[in-house]
């Protein structure tokens, strides 16, 4: 009843190619953004901002990056954390060695450096496919970890190999309070998400999807495979690199190479799978689920049986519950949260007269 497009006519070509063709969607998105930008910083506690929202947004950005590569272009990768690591270390070194560089430019440069590394590790994708490619991208994971541990220059010869991100200042304004850090992360993530959404609707995005669906057919209709695959690797690594830089600067404040280990890559891969391959929204929903749900379980279990069950057992129960939920969810809806959202929208269109 309320969610219906009857009466909304698209009279121009531009109106037809909008991201949200339905007015209600536009309104919903505007409300969501307004809430995220205005209401949340005022209402959310410091805990919610620094321990939940900031890491969730940063990981959502990384998931978005992986989604471009895996969801849109169909190339498996287990090197996500490595590209995040490159971004974090690049941003640190740029700020350290070129202190006059504006912070936002630093993040972009860190993303570009990461994109460069991504291109190199994307080269094998031209010859190998599927799970074999996933194994090949593992090399990135181990190589980057090894490089940053072995070569002291990257961590400015810190005795422990841990780098401490510099303080963030944009145009003279220090970004130190949780609210400011949250707004910075939210702005960067929003802009990059918008770009990703648009990218997926352009020629580039369509050629990614063509390659994903069948690369031979794509080549036959004239899509250059080499360029398509490599742009996917480059753009994906750019997103991961920026996300890594944000992880270091806006969230943890320090980075040790082990912070971006294989487990992080898997975590992000699960976000993409649970959220929904090949959707922008899926990255956010997946990040929220993988990142926040264990904390919610932890909080719930503590509240329910505080002091009655051994804490060690409790922590293990949480893992069991979380694992079981993932399995149940993947059986019920293998296409992820984004698909559930889509189904909900379709149902809503017909509501309350489904027949």
């Amino acid at each position, binding site marked *: 009843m309320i969610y219906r497009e009857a009466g909304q006519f698209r009279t121009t070509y531009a109106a037809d190619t909008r991201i949200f063709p339905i007015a209600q969607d536009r309104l919903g998105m505007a409300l969501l953004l307004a809430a995220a930008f205005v209401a949340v910083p005022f209402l959310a506690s*410091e*805990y919610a901002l*620094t*321990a*939940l929202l900031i*890491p969730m947004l940063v990981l959502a950005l990384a998931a978005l990056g992986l989604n471009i590569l895996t969801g849109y272009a169909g190339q498996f990768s287990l090197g996500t954390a490595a590209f995040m690591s490159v971004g974090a270390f690049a941003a640190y070194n740029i700020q*350290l060695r070129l202190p006059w560089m504006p912070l936002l430019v630093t993040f972009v440069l860190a993303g570009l450096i990461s994109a460069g590394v991504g291109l190199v590790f994307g080269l094998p994708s031209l010859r190998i496919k599927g799970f074999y490619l996933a194994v090949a991208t593992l090399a990135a994971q181990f190589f980057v*970890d*090894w490089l940053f*541990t072995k070569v002291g220059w990257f961590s*400015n010869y810190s*005795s*422990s*190999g*841990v780098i*401490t991100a*510099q*303080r963030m200042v944009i145009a003279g304004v220090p970004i*130190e309070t949780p609210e400011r850090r949250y707004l910075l992360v939210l702005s960067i993530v929003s802009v990059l998400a918008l770009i990703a959404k648009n990218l997926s609707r352009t020629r580039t995005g369509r050629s990614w999807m063509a390659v994903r669906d069948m690369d031979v057919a794509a080549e036959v209709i004239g899509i250059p495979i080499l360029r398509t695959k490599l742009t996917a690797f480059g753009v994906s690594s750019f997103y991961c690199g920026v996300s890594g830089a944000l992880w270091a600067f806006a*969230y*943890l*404040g*320090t980075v*040790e190479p*082990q*912070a971006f*280990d294989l487990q992080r890559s898997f975590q992000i891969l699960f976000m993409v799978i649970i959220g929904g391959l090949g959707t922008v929204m899926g990255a956010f929903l997946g990040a929220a689920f993988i990142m926040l749900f264990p*904390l919610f379980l*932890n909080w*719930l279990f*503590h*509240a*329910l049986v*505080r002091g009655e069950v*051994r*804490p*060690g057992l*409790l*922590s*293990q129960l*949480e*893992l069991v519950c979380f694992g079981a939920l993932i399995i149940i969810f993947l059986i019920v809806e293998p296409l992820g949260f984004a698909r559930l959202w889509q189904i909900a929208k379709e149902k809503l269109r017909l509501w309350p007269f489904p027949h």
Partner: protein
Amino acid sequence: MRTNKRGWCLGAALTVGLVWSGSARAEGEQFMPVPSYRIGPYAAGGTSLYGGFIDYMNLINMRDGGINGVKLVWEECETEYKPDRGVECYERLKAKGPTGAAMFNFYSTGIAYALINKATADKIPLVTIAHGRTDAADGRYFPYVFPLITHYWSLNTDIIRYIGQREGGMANLKGKKIVHLHHGSAYGKEPNAIFQKQAEKYGFEAKIIEVPAPGSEQQAQWLEIRQFKPDWVIVTGWGVMNPAMLKNAARVGFPMDHIIGNVWTGSEEDVEPVGAPAKGYISAAINPPGKDFKVIQEIERVVYAAGKGNMTDKNRVGSIYYNRGVLTGIVAVEAIRVAQGKFGKKPLTGEQIRWGLENLNLDASRIAAIGATNFIQPLKVSCNDHEGGGAAKFQQWDGTKWKIISDWIQADKDLVRPMIEESAKKYATENNLPLRDCGKEKS
């Protein structure tokens, strides 16, 4: 459908109600966060460390009715030893209780690193006993970080001095070959700088070999060690790396009594899986194992007799990590006691407890009063020196238990301190940290 919905509502209401009742706390209590790790690869250590810590706080509550009448309350949060979960736990627990968290002790170098700036801004002390950022021992730049008792650099000099003793004098180290085998993490790399400095000073040939985390694969490293033919191997290991290290050493036939682990490479959990081949292996210790101490016996008498003990496996009471947890409890409680002497017998803020930590002075008589003679080393913390002790004992595995084989061996402070000051200063200039004037802060 309808009943189902009602069930959900009921469940949600119940949950909210329980959470509400759980978070209510009395006024006269001191809140102590317990960011433990009871699952994951390092769970064996975490369970005992935090079990001992909680048992000691229980002892203070049950026997003495708290610290000068102020009861300790605590809440656990699972960190899994990971920085991101640790930060979440920190944010979750830092404002609990009437005065907020008293102090944090994560027993994870990665988490400690991630929280130095946050804890300083929030004015909550970060206690990093025998772990964490070494140069934070310079309290002039790191007012809220306390690497109490010892840190990686002091510990490394303790070990080299012990080797010197065994060789019949430091002069005999000249020309010897010593390997530092370390865990491939921030923690493992930390001692390298001081190790090389000592190689210059004493003229031994140093070789650093890294084991990639988590450390279960070491064949290549031990092959390298066998080719190098060192006189001694120093190990900075953690978790699964340790038994793997001993197994590989036994396989290449390296003499066990020439391998020396640091304080995180010498627990029952590390040697028991290896069995007989580990016999003779030596490690450093900041706390002895066993129950021959009044404080441990008191815990058994008061806490475990009442069925309130935290350890499910009671055989672990008196193990190395358990005793280290008790040691953590002693230091925390004594620091709060010192702070209460200045600010009054009531729940204190992190800022006030920081003062207590900085003015902590555990001398022999106080240690005896706690019932911890020979259990903890004398400790005198100051604005300048946030470490306080620096000594270690050495222990040897006799096949069934650890046996202390040395007295407290003091750290080479003349060597360590200038390096700490230099490193802290470099960090401070990188991060624009102010320098405190310790002369002005005489209580």
